[in-house]
C-alpha cells in the first residue's frame, strides 16, 4: 500500500518536514503520526505493539488538535521512552473546537532491535497546516530535530 505521507526537502534546512493525507480527519491524523514515527525510526514496521496508551485531547480547531496530537507523541517518547502509532482514533468536531480519542500502540525504545534515526524535539508552527482537499485532508508539518 502506498504510504499516506511524503517527506519534503525544501523547508527548514536543519529540520524535517512532511506532508500527510487522509480521506477523513481520522485518516490524516493517523498518517501524520506514522510520518512522525518514520522521522525517528528507520524501519517503522519493526515497532511492536506491546505498549498501549489512551489519549484524549481537545483544541480550538482541527488544525491545533493535530499539533497537540503530534506533540503528545513527542512528549510520550521522552517521558516513557516509548514510540507509538495510532491503533484507533476518533476525531470529532464540537461546537467550540475539536476533540479526539485515540488508542496508541507501540513499544519501548530498544537500541538492539530498533534502528533509530534522529530525535524529534518538537512540532513547530512554521508553515504548519491542515487543509481540506478534493480527496479529503492534507497536513503539512515541520518538526524540530
Amino acid at each position: 500500500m502506498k504510504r499516506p505521507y511524503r517527506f519534503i526537502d525544501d523547508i527548514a534546512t536543519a529540520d524535517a518536514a512532511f506532508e500527510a493525507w487522509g480521506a477523513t480527519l481520522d485518516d490524516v491524523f493517523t498518517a501524520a503520526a506514522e510520518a512522525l514515527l518514520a522521522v525517528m525510526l528507520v524501519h517503522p514496521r519493526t515497532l511492536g505493539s506491546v505498549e498501549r496508551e489512551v489519549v484524549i485531547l481537545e483544541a480550538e480547531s482541527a488544525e491545533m488538535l493535530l499539533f497537540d496530537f503530534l506533540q503528545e507523541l513527542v512528549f510520550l517518547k521522552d517521558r516513557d521512552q516509548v514510540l507509538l502509532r495510532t491503533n484507533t482514533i476518533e476525531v470529532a468536531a464540537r461546537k467550540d473546537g475539536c476533540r479526539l480519542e485515540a488508542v496508541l500502540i507501540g513499544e519501548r525504545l530498544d537500541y538492539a532491535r530498533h534502528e533509530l534515526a534522529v530525535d524529534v524535539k518538537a512540532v513547530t508552527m512554521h508553515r504548519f497546516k491542515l487543509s481540506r482537499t478534493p480527496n479529503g485532508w492534507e497536513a503539512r508539518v515541520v518538526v524540530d530535530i
Partner: protein
Amino acid sequence: MADLRALIRRSAALWELPVSYREGMRVPGRIYATEMLVRAMDDGVLEQLANVAMLPGIVKYACCMPDGHWGYGFPIGGVAAMDPRRGVISPGGIGFDINCGMRLATTNLDYDEVKPHLPRLVDRLFARVPSGVGCKGFIDLSRNEFMDVLEQGARWCVARGYGWQEDLARTEDNGCAAGADAATVSPRAIERGFNQIGTLGSGNHYLEIQVVRPEHRFDAETAAVFGLDRPEQVVVMFHCGSRGFGHQVATDYLRAFVKIMGPQFGLTVRDRELACVPFASREGRNYFAAMKCAMNMAYANRQVIMHRIREVFAEVFKKDPADLGLQQVYDVCHNTAKLEPHTVDGRRRELLVHRKGATRAFAPGMTDMPPSYRRVGQPVIIGGSMQSGSYLLVGMASGEQTFFSTAHGSGRRMSRRQARKRFQGRKLLKEMAHRGIHVRARSLKSLAEEAGEAYKNIDDVVAAASEGAISRPVVRFTPIGNIKG
C-alpha cells in the same frame, strides 16, 4: 539561493535588507557574510529575516550571522534586540532547544599521548554519556530536586560533587540564569525532562576530542589566557541543550501564545512560529522565567556531562582529572533571550536580545565573564562538523553592531534528507577512521546527516565573522574522536 538583488552591500561582509523589501518591516535586516556565503543562503533566510524585522519593539536591525540558514520562525543565526518596555518576547526567536550550547575543556595531554588510547577513550565516553533518541540520564533525582536544578542550574551540580567550583565562573551566567521560577513551568515539562540530566540527545549534538595543531593557533597570547598553550594540545568539546524539558517549555508557551497573541494583545505575525507577547506582560514575564529554568537545565546538563568526561579520562589515563589538566575553558549558550545593557545611538539601554543559533561575544573590558578573560574578551565556541573542525573565537569591541553576537557553528547547507541520500554512515565511519578520527554513533542514518559536506565550510564562516568584525579567531581545533547520538 538568496537573491542578491534584494540586498544592499554595505561592506565586504555586511549586507542590508532594506525595509522596502517587505511591507511592515520596522527595521532593516543585516546579514554578516561574504558574497559566497550570502549566495549560498536560501531565500528562506531573507523572508525570515524580514518577518523578524516586523516584530514590535525591535531595535536597529534584525541580524543574521554568517552561518545563517532557513529555520522555523527566526532564521538559524538570527539576532533581534527588543525594547523591553514596548517590545515582544518570542519563543520562536530562541528555539525549542533553549540554551543549546557548547562547552570546551582543555587537557595537558598532547596528541601522541592520547592517540594509543583514543579508541578506548571514545568507546568509554560513548558508553558513559547517554545519547540518542529518547535517552535517559544517569542522575537519580526526585521531581522536587529537579525543581531545585531548574532554579540553581550548574550550581546545584557542583554543590553535589558533579564538577569543580571554577567551572561555574567559566560558564555564561556563572551557570545559573537568575530569575528562573519553577512555578512558571508546566508539570508536563517536568515529567518529560526530569530524567534527562546528563544526556547528549541526537541530531547535531555531539561530544568531540580535538587537537590544536601549532599552525592553527592564530593568536598565541589570547590562546594562552584560555589555557591553550601546548603544542598538539588535546581538548574536549561538546554540544547539547536542555533536552525534552526545554523543548516542552518552548512548546507550551508557543502553543499558548498562538492562542492569545491576537485576542489578548492585538498582535499578528506572518509565521505562527513567531508567536509572541509583550515582554512586559504577565505572560511574557512568565515565559522569560520558564525559559530561564530551561537555561538552567541545560547548564546542569552540560555540567554533569563535564563531570562524566573527567571520570572517563581518569579511568582511561589512570590519573586524577586535575592532574590531566581537565580545566573548563568556557560554556556558551546559543539559543537564548537575555536582558543586557547595550549602547544604541550613543545611549545606554537595556535590551532583550534574542539569539537563535547565535553566540554572545562580549568584547574586552566588558563584565559578565571570568575576570581573567576580561582583558582579551569573551571566548566563543564554534562547533563545526565532525569531519572539518571547530573554532575558539573571541569577542571584539566592534561586535557592538550585532549586540555583541556572532556565529554558533558551520550552519547546514544541505537538508538532512539530501545528506542521507548522498552519504552513507558506514562509509563515512571508514573514511574518518582512515583520517584518524575515531567515531562512535548511535545511528548510522543520523551520522550520514551530519557529514561534513552537509555543512558550510567552517573556515568560510569564521572568516566572514572576522571580516564583519563581530569576533576573531584564536584557535582552530581538528577532530580526532567523536561520539554522536
